């Protein structure tokens, strides 16, 4: 369980978060939905302890996030970002195995785990020896996901993991993620600006705007009982126009 209580964060003149409260229930996929600059990525960075909150509390499974607890909390979280943040000097296997290597796993155990994950995300074995620059965008995000999963953490934080991909790869991966989160029983927080992705993946959705929570709820709640006109506006903005809808 991840809990934010009345959290504010300012970067210079920019108020990134302004009194945000949020609860992520275990084994659910919680989507943080919002436009650019809405503060959704900052929530993940606060949970990871990469930046401290100015005011308010952040806790993971009852443990407040702080300099003393950060290391332990990070150990229980897998993190994926939009461009993958893969290390260009390491092969796929090197990248995926890095968290395990950092914690002193024996080489054989790392190799076995990497192979297991490759099967899980349907990643072809020969590609394990390739460098990030030799992979496609979709392959790179699979690698990033494998790396986030290698220590089998209970929590996954995904920051626009599919944001840089073409529509087909994106849709394909969205489907795979739904299935995987369900099978692996992870607590997932997924940041996106894509309404379709929120609909497909999100158990619960929090819509953020300018650092404030606009509405919490299921997709159904947001669509049928919008808290403000902005909610409807945001959801509709990405709906295909009626004339286009006729084609499908």
């Amino acid at each position, binding site marked *: 369980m991840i809990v934010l209580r009345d959290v504010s964060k300012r970067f210079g003149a920019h108020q990134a978060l302004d009194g945000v409260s949020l609860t992520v229930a275990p084994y659910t996929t919680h989507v943080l939905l919002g436009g650019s600059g809405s503060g959704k990525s900052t929530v993940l*960075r606060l949970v*990871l302890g*990469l930046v401290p909150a100015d005011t308010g509390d952040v806790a993971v499974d009852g443990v407040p996030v702080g300099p003393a607890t950060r*290391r332990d909390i*990070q*150990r229980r*979280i897998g*993190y994926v*970002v939009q*461009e993958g*943040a893969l*290390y*260009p*000097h*390491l*092969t796929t296997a090197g990248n995926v195995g*890095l*968290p395990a*290597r*950092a*914690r002193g796993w024996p080489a054989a155990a790392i190799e076995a785990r990497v192979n297991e994950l490759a099967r899980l995300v349907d990643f072809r074995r020969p590609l394990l020896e390739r*460098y*990030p*620059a*030799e992979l496609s965008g979709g392959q790179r995000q699979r690698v990033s996901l494998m*790396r986030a999963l290698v220590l089998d953490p209970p929590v996954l934080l995904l920051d626009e993991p599919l944001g840089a991909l073409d529509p087909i790869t994106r849709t394909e991966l969205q489907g795979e993620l739904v299935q995987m989160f369900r099978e692996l029983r992870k607590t997932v927080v997924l940041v996106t600006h894509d309404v379709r992705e929120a609909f497909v993946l999100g158990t619960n959705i929090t819509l953020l705007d300018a650092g404030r929570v606009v509405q919490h709820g299921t997709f159904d709640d947001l669509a049928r009982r919008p808290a403000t006109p902005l909610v409807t506006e945001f959801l509709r903005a990405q709906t295909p126009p009626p004339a286009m809808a006729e084609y499908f």
Partner: protein
Amino acid sequence: MRRRRPGAALIAGTLLATALTAAVPAGAAERPVVRIGSKSFTESYILAELVAQIVEQAGEARVDRKFGLGGTGIVYNALAGGELDVYPEYTGTVARMILKDPGVTTLDVMRTRVAERGLVVSAPLGFDNAYALAVSRATAGRLGLRTLSDLRGHRELTALFDPGFLDRDDGWPGLRRHYGLDFRDVRIMEHALAYRALASGKVDVITVFTTDGELAREAVTVLADDRKFFPDYVAVLLARRAFVEQQPRTWAALERRLAGRLDNATMARLNAEVDLDHQSAAAVAASFLGTGLGTGRREAGSERRAALLRELPALTLQHLVLVGVSLAVAVALGVPLGILAARRRRLGQVELMGVGVLQTIPALALLSFMIPLFGIGRVPALVALSLYALLPIVRNTYAGLVSLDPQLVDMAAVIGLDGTKRLGWVELPLASVTILAGIKTAAVLTVGTATLAAFIGGGGYGTLIVTGLALNDAATILAGAIPSALMALAVHGLFEAFDRLAVPRGLRIRASPR
């Protein structure tokens, strides 16, 4: 400081051959070694060579020639620091630059004062290498000029002075007041060209040194300093007392065979034989001591070149050692310093500033600072070169680390990499391209800077350049400069190849378009 400028002479070959063989102990008997220094101008080379040959003949000790050191500060500090035993010096220089007291004019006072520093001054060798003004013999005859006083009232004359002479207190400002002189036009030109200008008739009065080789050959009249303005620059030997006491027979031989034996005309003739006739200082010295092999006038160009070529392998090795060792030290210090600067940003700014300031110290000055600490030779040269190579390495290491993609750095923390693992597994490999570029820059720079090591007896290609500069001999300068340039190119090429090994493969793929 008195300096000599040049004609075009070539001493290098023989000089270096002896210097180098002397530098490597032949495993011979346990005879003591007398280390003889010289500054880097013709007269100093000749005097030092005279000293060396007399010491060798005295048979008490072997000789280590440390010639061509870059100036009074360097040679004197080497002597005071026990790195040299004896070198030729001038009384004016001892008073003004060493004792820093122009009031010391008598030899007795000077002896007392340097004795406090454990040094001994020999009896005067017999000549006075002072500044003087000279006119052409024709002008002297026409205007009846014999002394500086005779110049008074001749405002129609044009003068050509050394760059230094115009500003020095013991130069033109003082001279003008002392004698009440005035000229129509005072121009400045490099001393080497003054005699030619005088011969052409374009100027009437020039500055000379009273033992210039040209004075032995050209139709020039040196005007007598009748009202005693110019300080004495009487040549003497400056020696360590320990050497004088431990090799009394050698010291006695030096005094007996040199003191009072070299008057101005004789010294000017010896200078002319090197500067104008292109004989080696060793040959000129041997001939003066009567032990010469009836020296032929001039060594053939092909022989000179052959002698230079024989030196090149040894000098190349010395140069490589200078560059290799100083670069290794600079990397060993510079990379950790760069890492420290990137970790502690505020400390880092101070550190980068400090390294930057090091770089602004002229290389020659940095080299001379090393002498009180490390003496002369290879060690101080290596220290100075290492310090000099630091900046590009520290700066690039710092720049490479602070410009890493922040997402990759954050991810390292989340993944659980901290401290040395984060540095070694992620940060240094990612910054490797930038760091290696800094090391490459440092290496190429060091090949060039290492040529200055010769000024403090550090060896390498600079030995040829320093000698060639002192004797104004282009062939010798090029014999040092061209191999040095080639080595710089080779080092550059070597690092290009090394990049391919040291930069992780994944980074090279990124660096090239797909």
